[in-house]
């Protein structure tokens, strides 16, 4: 048995007889520093522990020693020492001039890191400015991104991009990272997802390495955090991010953040974070218009070395409307299908292939009646009362949700919806739709409820 094993088994015995708080307070960072001839010297972190062990736990340690070793200890003494590992690390030498300002800090970082090959820092080669298609929907975001890539930390800091799924947020974020690395290879760039940040933080708490975590995230020149909305509800992570943000911002380091909605609409995120996100530049990326979608398809097609008729491209672009990722998916589907069946692409082929995924088909089948039925079932109110004139609160919300859903899912006209709901005025319907849309931005519960209703609607329809 060596010193470490002996001490571990003594601790094992003591842990059983002491309360948890006492055990962890007094035996943390203790070890045996010398053991020979039945004499042991216990290393303790400070004099408080020294006097406490001497006066309170001396006999317990003696008993444990005897139990484990067979022979009683001749002498047990206590000495203030730090564990070897930490004493071997000579403390880093600091000088006051190294950190006070951004200028010198950059030099300091430069000496530490060799210029790393492009492609590290969590960036994907695929996403560059050259293959980013600019349309009306993303002009502003693109221009701001370009400006930031030219002079990081100077123009818009922080830069906040928001937009729906699959519209190119990640592409733009990573393009900035690549561009900056190209112009300033000495800068340290870090692209991370919100999830990775959270995981790293949790891990660092678990391993007790929070200071390492902090220096990792603070010793960089460009921090890109994707999908920040996932930080909602994670208070500790938010706090950590808040401090990281402040530290970087104070040192004029560029911060770029993306989310699926504007800062003010992210629920359960601390006010002080929201206000900081809104500090620099906020740009949104909207759905691409038809021309942009065609341009995107054109690039993708030439990237894949394919030849597709203009007609076909126009058709795909007109069918898949909201999401660039789906647009690419549709294209991939067509390519795969054509390759597998070894057929030449034609408009008819493409129509059949895409018929399964075009959302229009789904929408046509939902009727206002179905919506009314599902919503009244969901909220457990009768159809009659919904169609009636009562303005009780428990009826008003479902009624407004019905109007909203009919409008969204069937594209019925406002007067039409009014008529379906017992002859209400079209302005009532407009108000309801506006109110629910607005509420959806902030009310998570409502969002969940409406999604549940939608699911019921479509499940019932397909079964």
């Amino acid at each position, binding site marked *: 048995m060596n010193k470490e094993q002996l001490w571990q088994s003594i601790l094992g015995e003591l842990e059983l007889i002491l309360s948890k708080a006492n055990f962890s*307070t007094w035996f943390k960072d203790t070890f045996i520093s010398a053991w020979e001839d039945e004499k042991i010297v216990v290393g303790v972190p*400070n004099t*408080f522990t020294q006097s*406490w062990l001497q006066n309170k736990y001396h006999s317990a340690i003696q008993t444990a020693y005897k139990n484990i070793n067979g022979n009683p200890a001749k002498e047990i003494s206590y000495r*203030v020492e730090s564990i070897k590992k930490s004493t071997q690390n000579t*403390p880093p030498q600091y*000088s006051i001039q190294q950190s006070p300002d951004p*200028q010198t800090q950059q030099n300091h970082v430069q000496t530490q890191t060799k210029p790393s090959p492009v492609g590290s820092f969590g960036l994907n080669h695929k996403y560059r400015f050259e293959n980013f298609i600019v349309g009306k929907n993303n002009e502003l975001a693109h221009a701001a991104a370009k400006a930031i890539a030219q002079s990081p930390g100077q123009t818009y800091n922080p830069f906040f991009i928001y937009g729906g799924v699959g519209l190119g947020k990640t592409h733009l974020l990573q393009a900035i990272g690549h561009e900056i690395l190209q112009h300033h290879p000495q800068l340290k760039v870090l692209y991370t997802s919100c999830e990775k940040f959270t995981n790293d933080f949790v891990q660092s708490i678990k391993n007790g390495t929070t200071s390492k975590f902090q220096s990792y995230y603070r010793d960089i020149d460009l921090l890109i955090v994707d999908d920040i909305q996932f930080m909602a509800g994670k208070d500790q992570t938010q706090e950590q991010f808040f401090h990281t943000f402040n530290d970087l911002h*104070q040192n004029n380091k560029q911060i770029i953040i993306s989310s699926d909605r504007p800062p003010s609409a992210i629920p359960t995120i601390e006010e002080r974070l929201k206000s900081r996100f809104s500090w620099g530049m906020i740009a949104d990326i909207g759905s691409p218009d038809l021309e942009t979608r065609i341009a995107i398809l054109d690039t993708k097609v030439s990237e894949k070395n394919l030849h597709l008729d203009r007609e076909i491209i126009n058709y795909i672009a007109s069918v898949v409307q909201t999401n660039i990722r789906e647009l690419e998916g549709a294209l991939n589907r067509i390519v795969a299908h054509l390759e597998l069946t070894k057929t030449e692409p034609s408009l008819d082929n493409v129509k059949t292939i895409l018929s399964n995924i075009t959302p229009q088909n789904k929408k046509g089948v939902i009727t206002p009646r179905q919506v009314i039925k599902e919503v009244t079932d969901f909220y457990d109110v009768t159809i009659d009362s919904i169609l009636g004139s009562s303005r009780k609160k428990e009826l008003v919300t479902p009624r407004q949700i019905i109007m909203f859903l009919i409008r969204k899912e069937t594209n019925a006209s406002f007067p039409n919806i009014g008529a379906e709901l017992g002859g209400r005025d079209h302005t009532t319907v407009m108000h309801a739709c506006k109110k629910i849309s607005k509420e959806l931005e902030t009310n998570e519960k409502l969002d969940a409820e409406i999604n549940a209703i939608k699911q019921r609607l479509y499940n019932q329809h397909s079964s």
Partner: protein
Amino acid sequence: MKFVCTQENLRYGVSLVSKLPSRSVGLPILNNVMLEVVGGVLKVSSTNLEIGVITEIRGKSESDGSFTVDAKVFSDYVSMLPGGNVTLELVKGQLKVECGNFSTKIRGQSSDEFPIIPRVATQKTASVDSSALKECLSKTMFSVSLDSMRPEITGVLMSGSGKKVVMVATDSYRLSECALMLSEGEYSGKCIIPLRALSELDRALSGDDVADMYVDENQIMFVVGQTIIISKLIEGEYPDHTQIIPKSFSTVAEVGKNDLMQATRAASLFARSGIYDISLKFGEKKGVVEVGTSNVQVGEQETRLDADISGSPLTVVFNYKYLLDGLQSFVGDIVVFKMDSSTTPVVMKSDKDKEYLYMIMPIKQ
């Protein structure tokens, strides 16, 4: 345990020890103060396992014994009592406190579990005049870094060479250095004292007592009158501050302290939040310092102050908080700025205060 003392003595003694206990520890008894009647005096003590404070209170001891009660409750209650004699008595596991027509019973914990505050074994190292030490602390403590990632600068460096002791504090953006003469004994060596221990010491320093220092390898102990403060020392290597202090200067300016403080406060309203920058233009117009700042959102501001400037004109951008902290710490009406360029540390001194030096790292543009 039974003890009688005046409310004033008790309140003063308890106020010295009751700030140390912290709420966030695994051991609840650390929130408490220990009251111990032994040898005819009442000892009150508290600790956070890094620092311990013990003070003695005069009074009439009737029977020995000890107990612990919640620090905040006890000190708040004691400060609310009317003057006169206070009787403390341990009755059935509760502390009975009686004073005038006030009477209370405070629940607490037995003192068996209360940590033993270790004493520093060595002989007395040196003594120093209380008021000089207090002044020196007030000039250094505000510069101490709160950044736990660099523990070695979260305390004040005390480096001694015989009779003279120099206290240094920095947060790597600014630095204070204050020298002090020991009144008795000598100290040669270096140690880093945690900020927390010094604020406890600062509280205990009063009047014209002499403070005794006991320094050993890991610990330091101060004895001021009836109060003892024991703290562990911070391990690590303090940055070598002497090499950072510039030796040659191209511009030297003497400015009225109060006018400059006024101007700095005015300019601070226009400084960019998060950067806190204000600029001082020395000698661009002859014999004038222009203190100003501009902010796109708020506006701009400029104050012109007369000054005695020698050397080449120079513009330096400061963090106004650091500048104000420094100005406030000087005695005397004139502050001397010594600068070499807009990117090297700026040294501030006072004609009245030869042993004190304050230095700020300017903000680079």
